[in-house]
């Protein structure tokens, strides 16, 4: 009954001696470090879930004198707030993960891209960076960090938009391929990793790949930090073993009247009560960058959907038509249905439009608008119409 267990884990916030871990790890060969991260089964915690070891391996394989490691601290997905807490509580572990990555891929410079909303963290991070730089010098490891701030654009969390932003431009996503591992920041091979992902690499180096691999399920190894909010008596940040069902999650965090859980924020999926039992939170079911929002029966799912569509309409960078116009039309469409100007069959047309956006949009923003749209419209049709 492994999949029904809900186990607390303490890896991310555990207080460890980063210097000691780095002393040991930075002496190892890049291939060995990468192999450990591969063996652990760690997948990116920023949402997309690409195997971290593969990302490092591809970047390491590039023959370029200049490479970068970038820490994605843009955390803009509605309902996600764990990276802020990680940076606030254990910044040294985040930077330590970047040092390990630098050794693995062969980078001498790392960038931390912090969302502007978290600017209050800057003094602390700068102080920590000084300590870190002194430590790198002592260890004779040639690696420096730069801190860059966002300025209130959700799209800058998308990796190629984030590079554009660091380069001093509008945060507009690029075409892929080429992927960042071959052509990323300033056109150089780049590994971009989420804050939480980087901390896990530190813990994998400390405890070994096996330790991490034993936690979780085949598709979702290890644990994950969840940001829990909405109708719950226990809103907050929790690190849990992956592989639990939504049902178990709701038993732990619900208020006794949970009718839906939005897993993965505005770009994630809405799971209705009747699907709680059979839905696993993880890459085999509903993936999440951490955002878990609970809604009880007093909530209107129309309001939830409207809020998300309003969000996407505002945050779409406007570069490609399917997303720019699609977001607007979905928003106007559900409003028209709500006002009774369009009949319920119109919702099916809108679902088709969301499907087109998934295929035709240039980046993950436009491609994922349909996730929340379809899962809310299909499961709560009456609430959208009446």
């Amino acid at each position, binding site marked *: 009954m492994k999949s029904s267990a809900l186990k607390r884990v303490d890896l991310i916030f555990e207080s460890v001696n980063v210097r000691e871990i780095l002393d040991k790890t930075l002496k190892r060969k890049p291939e060995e470090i990468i192999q450990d991260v591969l063996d652990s089964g760690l997948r990116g915690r920023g949402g997309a879930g690409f195997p971290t070891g593969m990302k490092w391996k591809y970047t390491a394989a590039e023959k370029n004198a200049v490479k970068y490691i970038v820490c994605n601290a843009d*955390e*803009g*997905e*509605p*309902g*996600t*707030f764990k990276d*802020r807490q990680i940076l606030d509580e254990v910044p040294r572990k985040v930077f330590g993960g970047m040092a390990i990555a630098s050794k693995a891929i062969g980078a001498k410079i790392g960038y931390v891209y912090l*969302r*502007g*909303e*978290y*600017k*209050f963290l800057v003094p602390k991070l700068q102080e920590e960076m000084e300590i870190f730089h002194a430590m790198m010098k002592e260890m004779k490891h040639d690696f420096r960090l730069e801190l*860059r*701030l*966002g*300025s*209130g*654009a*959700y799209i800058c969390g998308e990796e190629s938009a984030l590079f554009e*932003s*660091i*380069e*001093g*431009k*509008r*945060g*507009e996503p690029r075409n892929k391929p080429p992927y960042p591992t071959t052509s990323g920041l*300033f056109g150089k091979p780049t590994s971009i990793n989420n804050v939480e992902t980087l901390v896990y690499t530190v813990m994998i180096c400390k405890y070994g790949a096996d330790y991490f691999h034993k936690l979780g399920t085949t598709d979702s190894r290890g644990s994950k930090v969840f*940001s*829990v*909010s*909405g*109708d719950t008596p226990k*809103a*907050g*940040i929790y690190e849990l073993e992956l592989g639990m069902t939504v049902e178990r999650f709701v038993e732990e965090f619900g208020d006794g009247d949970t009718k839906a859980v939005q897993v993965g924020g505005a770009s994630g999926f809405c799971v209705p009560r009747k699907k709680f039992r059979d839905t696993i939170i993880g890459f085999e079911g509903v993936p999440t960058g951490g955002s878990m*929002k609970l809604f009880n029966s007093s*909530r209107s799912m129309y*309001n*939830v959907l409207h*809020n*998300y569509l*309003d*969000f996407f309409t*505002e*945050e779409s*960078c406007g570069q490609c038509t399917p997303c720019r116009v699609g977001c607007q039309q979905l928003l106007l469409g559900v409003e028209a249905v709500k006002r009774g100007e369009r009949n319920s069959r119109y919702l099916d047309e809108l679902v088709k439009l969301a499907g087109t956006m998934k295929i035709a949009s240039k980046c993950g923003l436009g491609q994922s608008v349909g996730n929340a749209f379809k899962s809310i419209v299909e499961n709560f049709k009456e609430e959208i119409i009446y």
Partner: protein
Amino acid sequence: MLEQVNLVKELADKHGRRRDSLIPILQGLMEEKNYLTDEAMVLVAKELDISAADVYGTASFYTFMDTDVRGKYVIRICKTISCSMKGKIEVLHTIEETLKIKVGETTSDKKFSLLETNCIGWCHKAPAMLINDTPYTELTPQKVTEILQEYMKM
């Protein structure tokens, strides 16, 4: 004007004159004043030897780089559903009544601007807002009144 010229130079000395220095320089200007004036953007363009259209094009992409006149204290209240579920609307009304402005407006003494923003990462302590860079969480009408009164005294 001379003050601005000097500030832009200072910022360029600090952050460099490359293209990737642009955003840190603009952010530095924002720190001095809560919005970017046309003159300042033209000065930055000259300093970095790029077109003013490039500077404006970049600045206008970012929500936090306002090109409209803003007050000394910019209030950004979260408009994501988690905050709405925890009584944000009452808090917003309290701010509007206290400052006598609506969302998108600036007080006539140019002290406060009131804006809405998307999720600022405090959903577990909703409702939340930023005043310039400082987050305020678990707001209630009473709490927000007290906070605003402190700012009014400044």
